[in-house]
């Protein structure tokens, strides 16, 4: 089946250029960085020795939910950048180099081509994010106290919906332009613009994709899944599907050579 063929080829490509090694490693660092540095801040300051005699550091006691949210915040910044960077050339690069000229004269549908690549990148992102968050969870349990399996699973899966949207958006721009750097810029600018809109209108649009992490905070605090989280997740998934359909449509209008 063609879809599997392309998926396998993408996975092999990411394996041969070491993405399957470095992306999970980077995610581990991104996820554990903040919880660890927050916990060890007093010791770090002490060993550096920059404190005046008699100064006492009163670090606010942080609960496990706040600690794991630190990881998510880093994922939403650095992690996002990594995800967009590894996906920016997935179609644009093939169009630019000319490989697409060989591949797309074979009888393969554009949607198969796009969606298989989408799935391959999503799998890599999922695994890297999973490993990073599991290790972060381990340290949070060790240093800040227990975070239940249910809480962790809820947080992990709901936030992954946002990451699905990010990958879909990157794939979408891959079909619009064929310069990988431009794909990166457009994706980041779009997400920043969405984030600004979210901050301005958040009280009116509780279902906006960017509000997922806020709602996850709420979920951890209250112990139940707020309706807004379901709503935002549904909207985000819906937008992702729309983006994929639009990608297929746009790629069809493009000429594979110039």
């Amino acid at each position, binding site marked *: 089946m*063609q879809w599997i*063929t*392309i998926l396998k*080829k993408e996975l092999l*490509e990411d394996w*041969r*250029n070491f993405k399957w090694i470095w992306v999970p490693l980077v995610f581990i660092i991104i996820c554990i960085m903040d919880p660890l540095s927050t916990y060890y801040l007093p010791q770090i300051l002490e060993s550096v020795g920059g404190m005046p005699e008699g100064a006492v550091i009163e670090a606010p006691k942080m609960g496990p939910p706040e600690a794991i949210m630190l990881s998510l915040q880093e994922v939403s910044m650095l992690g996002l950048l990594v995800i967009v960077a590894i996906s920016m050339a997935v179609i644009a690069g093939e169009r630019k*180099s*000319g*490989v697409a*000229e*060989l*591949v*797309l*004269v*074979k*009888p*393969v549908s554009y949607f198969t081509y796009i969606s298989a690549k989408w799935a391959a990148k999503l799998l890599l992102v999922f695994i890297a994010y999973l490993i990073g968050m599991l290790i972060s969870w381990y340290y949070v349990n060790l240093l800040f106290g227990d975070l239940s399996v249910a809480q962790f699973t809820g947080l992990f899966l709901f936030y992954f919906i946002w990451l699905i949207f990010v990958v879909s958006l990157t794939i979408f721009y891959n079909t619009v332009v064929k310069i990988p750097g431009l794909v990166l810029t457009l994706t980041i600018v779009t997400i920043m613009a969405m984030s600004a809109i979210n901050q301005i209108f958040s009280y009116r649009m509780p279902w906006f994709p960017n509000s997922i992490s806020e709602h996850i905070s709420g979920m951890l605090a209250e112990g139940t899944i707020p309706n807004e989280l379901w709503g935002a997740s549904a909207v985000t998934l819906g937008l992702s599907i729309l983006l994929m359909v639009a990608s297929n449509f746009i790629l069809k209008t493009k*000429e*594979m*050579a110039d």
Partner: protein
Amino acid sequence: MTVIGVEKLTKAFKGKPIVKGLEFQLEKGRCVALLGPNGAGKTTTLRMLSGLLKPTAGTINFSGVQQGEDIRNHIGYLPQYPVFHPWMTGKEFLVYVGQLAHLTKQEAAEKADQLLEKVAIYESRNQRIGKYSGGMKQRLGIAQAMIHSPQLLMLDEPVSSLDPIGRREVLTLMEELKTQTTILFSTHILGDAEEISDDLLLMHQGEILESGSINTLRQKHQSAKFEIALFGDTSTYLEKIKAFSSVQDVYQEKGEVHVVVEDIELARKDILTKVLEEDWPLEKLALSKTTLEDLFMKVVKK
């Protein structure tokens, strides 16, 4: 039987026409050369036939293809500068595109081995393509175009970028492929076209100027021609030669005057008489037949 026919095929980029209303048919089993100088619109034409570009106007008809069926099932295409995934091996790439052309993994692997053997890069099949030479990539390119045994094989300048040995090898390979499928290839070298093709489409500035079998065209454009060289400034004699009633066309090339004539006897008498009468400083007077080369050069220079 016709494999493919195009009607009024036109392509414009940003309003500038590159291909202007092409009309031609390709007969099954023929090897057809699309001949023309650089910038004639050959690549654009092939890209439209392969579906990579959408025609601005006109139609392309594949016979034997049902309504709604993907024509890409029936064509193989080699771009002028084929680009592969450098991290794949030659065999991996062939199996990959073979599977994209609806072969099973086993079928694709068997076909890949056959083709690798045929294009003589079997020894390098497990080497990364990034390490292949230009000639090896060209051959891998032909192999990938053949992987699904297409009815029509289209090759864009298959030998232009190769050294003489590689060129010879690819031409020999095409000679062999000719027996299995219909081939349409573009080239700007007449020699290559004359050597392996049955039919010729002569293209210039987006239009087909001449088409037909090589033999027909050769006969059609074979007329007698004198080549005259004179000491001193030859150009002063041009007008005088032109004035002969027996002369059809006169042009200068590499310091020689080429005189296309209708009647050899009559023209020879005219010229020689003039030479003696006016005592022209004659260096050379030779009779030759015009060839496709002359036709091609004439077209290109226009």
